[in-house]
């Protein structure tokens, strides 16, 4: 019997100039109160801030605020076991929920001077840097799909998309990109 654990197949992503698929990653959905979040982020070496819709990021690990008791933790693919164990240790005895969602969704990067207008082809949020600053993250919608949108730089956004919606999201972006990249 072959070991197939290295064989992975992500969803189809339509190619377009402003959109780039990001590699597989470790994703854990953590639920719990502020103390849980503080301990978890501390264990991962991330700064804990309670501000809504803000991400903390350091050394390739990130924690995205998605709700008052919910953070999406991101880390490089190879760090799954390490991160999982760090969290288990830090959260032992505290009421929380930790669920692996590494394969539930995939990530896209939308970048370039037209990244905001491109996303606004289907995303109804105000993406002006004053309204949606670097470091802001939130669940929202893009056309008929739900996404997590995270501004990682003035002209760069990280999108988390459920895998079966990824072809749709990338196709909508590819279609709209034609208007912005003559």
């Amino acid at each position, binding site marked *: 019997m072959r070991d197939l654990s290295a064989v992975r197949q992500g969803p189809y992503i339509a190619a377009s100039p402003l959109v780039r698929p990001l590699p597989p990653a470790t994703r854990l959905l953590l639920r719990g109160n502020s103390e849980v979040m503080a301990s978890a982020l501390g264990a991962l070496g991330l700064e804990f801030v309670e501000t*809504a*819709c803000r991400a903390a990021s350091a050394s390739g690990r990130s924690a995205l605020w*998605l*709700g*008052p008791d*919910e953070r999406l933790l991101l880390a490089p693919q190879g760090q799954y076991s390490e991160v999982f164990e760090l969290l288990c240790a830090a959260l032992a005895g505290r009421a929380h929920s930790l669920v692996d969602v590494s394969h539930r969704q995939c990530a896209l990067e939308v970048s370039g001077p037209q990244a905001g207008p491109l996303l606004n082809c289907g995303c*109804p*949020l105000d993406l002006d840097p004053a309204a949606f600053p670097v470091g802001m993250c*939130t*669940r*929202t*919608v893009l056309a008929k799909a*739900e996404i997590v949108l995270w501004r990682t730089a003035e002209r760069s956004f990280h999108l988390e998309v459920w895998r079966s919606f990824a072809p749709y999201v990338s196709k909508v972006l590819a279609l709209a990109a034609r208007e912005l990249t003559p």
Partner: protein
Amino acid sequence: MLLINCPYCGERPELEFVHGGQAHIARPGDPAECSDQQWAEYLYRRDNIKGLHGERWRHTHGCGRFFNALRDTTSDVFLATYKVGEQPPTQAQLKGVKA
């Protein structure tokens, strides 16, 4: 498409929300003690107010939280939104908010 002030995330477009019906309809604590009429009222009776109306929204495509809102159903203007478990604002607190 309304603009709704999520108590956690701030003003967001209606596309991110799901309406949750009339607010403050608690499920009876002991359903077995309810008469058929009482149970039917819990299930089906709604105030359907023309005017200031308490309702639930869920920021489904956002923070995922349910919250309550006061909205004038004759203008669709929101007077307040507040978290589950909090009391609705009083008339005094609402004064000065344009309906």
